[in-house]
């Protein structure tokens, strides 16, 4: 009797929230990852100022991802979080240390370097943990009934370490290309120098993970071999976009590199989702089985349709207010 497939819509919404989080917090986590390598304290001030007014909003997408998952796919929420227990703790501890660094760093005098470390370490740990979460998700979870029954460190394997490091490098690339947009002079020149190296390393990780995933997971392998024609679009597009990105960096374009990096992340997420479809938790539960009651999905959907465009509207407006280069502008002046 269903006219519209609510679950399908919710897959789209949750995927959108996760994507928004990855690209938005991705670049400000990336700023943190690159922090110790920046050329001097002035550069660090600029980099931090470039994200200070917006990081809080960016991180809110993570909370939406968590709450949205609970609302739309509670089974996924209540299996993933126990399975990733220790990893989630590390991610949260990382996010705490980097989050407070925004306020504390500019208030500190003698201990400023301490908050530099806190910002850097917190961002790196959080990024790594998020990458490991993605890896663990690809890996799958041991379940019984509707509960996770595996061990505390099942999520930490050579494969997830690889995906964790991959995300650290990917976020760093987002951070570097964001820095290109928001700064000028010495800082920008430095960002132009590091971006190609980050891109190269990211491609290396991409290659390893792309080969490793199908080899280690028969189901993914079968999926890739079955649908050769469609699925291979993703790696091919990724390589193409990277080439465009590399060229844009050489030509000293300012906005194109960042957009290309976003595209790479989008392609990666899409490729992963399609390798898994229609399973939310392979091989046990499909998205439809992991979904909440249609009534709850509908109740929230109606609100979202109204509220999310407003959220996107005023978020875009704040980005507009803080547009332009950060150096020489008003500092952390509140």
């Amino acid at each position, binding site marked *: 009797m269903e006219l519209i497939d609510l679950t399908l819509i919710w897959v789209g919404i949750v995927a959108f929230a996760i994507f928004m989080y990855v690209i938005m917090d991705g670049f400000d986590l990336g700023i943190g990852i690159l922090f110790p390598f920046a050329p001097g304290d002035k550069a660090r001030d600029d980099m931090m100022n470039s994200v200070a007014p917006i990081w809080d909003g960016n991180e809110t997408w993570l909370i939406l991802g968590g709450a949205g998952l609970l609302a739309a796919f509670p089974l996924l929420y209540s299996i993933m979080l*126990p399975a990733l227990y220790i990893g989630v703790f590390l991610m949260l501890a990382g996010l705490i240390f980097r989050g407070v660094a925004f306020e504390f760093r500019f208030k500190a*005098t003698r201990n400023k370097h301490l908050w530099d470390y806190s910002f850097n370490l917190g961002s790196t740990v959080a990024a790594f943990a998020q990458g490991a979460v993605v890896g663990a998700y690809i890996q799958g979870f041991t379940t019984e009934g509707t509960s996770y029954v595996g061990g505390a460190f099942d999520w930490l394997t050579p494969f997830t370490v690889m995906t964790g490091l991959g995300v650290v490098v990917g976020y760093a690339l987002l951070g570097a290309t964001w820095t290109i947009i928001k700064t000028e002079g010495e800082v*920008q020149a430095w960002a132009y120098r590091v971006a190609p190296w980050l891109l190269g390393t990211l491609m290396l990780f991409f290659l390893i993970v792309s080969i490793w995933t199908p080899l280690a997971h028969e189901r993914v392998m079968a999926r890739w071999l079955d649908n050769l024609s469609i699925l291979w679009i993703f790696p091919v597009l990724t390589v193409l976009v990277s080439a465009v990105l590399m060229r844009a960096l050489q030509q000293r374009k300012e906005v194109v590199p960042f957009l290309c990096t976003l595209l790479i992340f989008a392609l990666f997420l899409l490729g992963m989702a399609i390798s898994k479809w229609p399973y939310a938790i392979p091989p046990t539960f499909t998205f439809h089985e992991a979904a909440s009651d249609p009534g709850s999905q509908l109740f929230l959907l109606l609100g979202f349709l109204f509220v999310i465009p407003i959220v996107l509207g005023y978020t875009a407006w704040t980005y507009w207010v803080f547009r332009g280069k950060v150096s020489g502008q008003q500092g952390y002046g509140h």
Partner: protein
Amino acid sequence: MIELDPVLLSRIQFAFVVSFHAIFPVFTIGLASYIAFLETRLFVTGKKVYEELAHFWTKIFAVVFGMGVVSGIVMAFQFGTNWSVFSYAASNFLGPVLSYEVVTAFFLEAAFLGILLFGRHRVPPGMHLFSAFMVAIGTFISSFWILSANSWMQTPAGVELVNGHFQMTSWGQAIFNPSFGWRFAHFALAAFITGGFVVAAMSAWYLIKGTAVESSRKALGSTIILLAVLTPTQAFVGDMHGLDTLKHQPVKVAAMEGAWETQEGLPLLLFAIPSQSQEKNFFEIGIPKLASLILTHDLDGEVKGLKEWAPEDRPNVFIVFWSFRVMVGIGLLMIAITLTGAFLHWRGKMFDSRWYLRIVSMTAPLPFLAVLAGWFVTEAGRQPWLVYGMLRVEDGITPSLTGWMVLATLIGYVLVYAAIFAAGLYYLSRIMRAGPHAYPIKTDDGTGRPKRPFSAVDTSIDSHLDQKAPHRS
């Protein structure tokens, strides 16, 4: 080896992270409204004193809000990590409610806080004022949703339990569940009172020191008057909330009163050491019949005692009993302080009564203690239920959790929070010591960059050079 109980440890962990988190929003909700008030006065009158105050309290707001945000992210995941069975069971209700909190409140606060903090000279004054209001409204919307969720766990409604899964029967009844109204009013008032006391205490302290006299007089005068209205109102609302609890959760009220036996003319105990195992109190000191009068509005009214319920269905009486006394005791103290202040102010003597200023300057911790004690009453009083009368705590825990996992992360959270709390207090105390007058004119600490474009001309040669640095091409 000692057996580590994941249920007990998870409860301790949740109590710790939520108590730590609650400190910040309870302060920022009140403070956000105060800042919106100051910004309005600034907008209307254009007086410098309001700019000084708005700027100063926004700076403090930023630090406190930052700590609230990071500790709040933890809360979004605690449900899933430690209470996955509960999360799954209650997801049909909790999922949408928490999601609505994110999209209607968190985004609003985050986006407009950015404008409030960094955008004073990038948007027109009207937009800046608008942002202050959006932040204040956001904090209220947020507490609406989270208190609805909490209240639903206390007095579940609008759902039926089917195969261990809550299914919605009425969204209206679930969101506006029986104890929501008074609970929300009680909390909102508590938030205003908390913000008010911090502002009053700081202002009194500046007046003693003789700094920022004009702005501090303005701030103290208006907050004391406001508090003198709010604190007695809170006593009334709290009483109504208590009567509401008697209707829906009588065992909680029995624990609050330390009443083991059902009796008519229940005394109001001022002191007692309740013993859970012996089912009685030691060293009781009480006022005869007063509890019956308060609860039933009749000196000989009957109040049900704890023994009406099976031992395993009773909350921890000692915690509930004493938390309640701490909350009420501090509440009465706050009423006395603010009424005294209002009287002195009416006679025009408040600013010259150094003894009074000294007392007020020390009151900042009081509302926080009262709020935490209140939460302990209502949350410990809900035990042993997770969703009152429907799902017990031990049935909501994550099955794969082992004791050491919870212990390790509990120790981790304690260490992390201790570090950031110490740092946060240190930086707050520095801002506070510098005082309101230190901000609008001074250049930014450390960076040597000016705070306002107008003063940029003579101080920021560096940044002008930066601006003209050649592009690489």
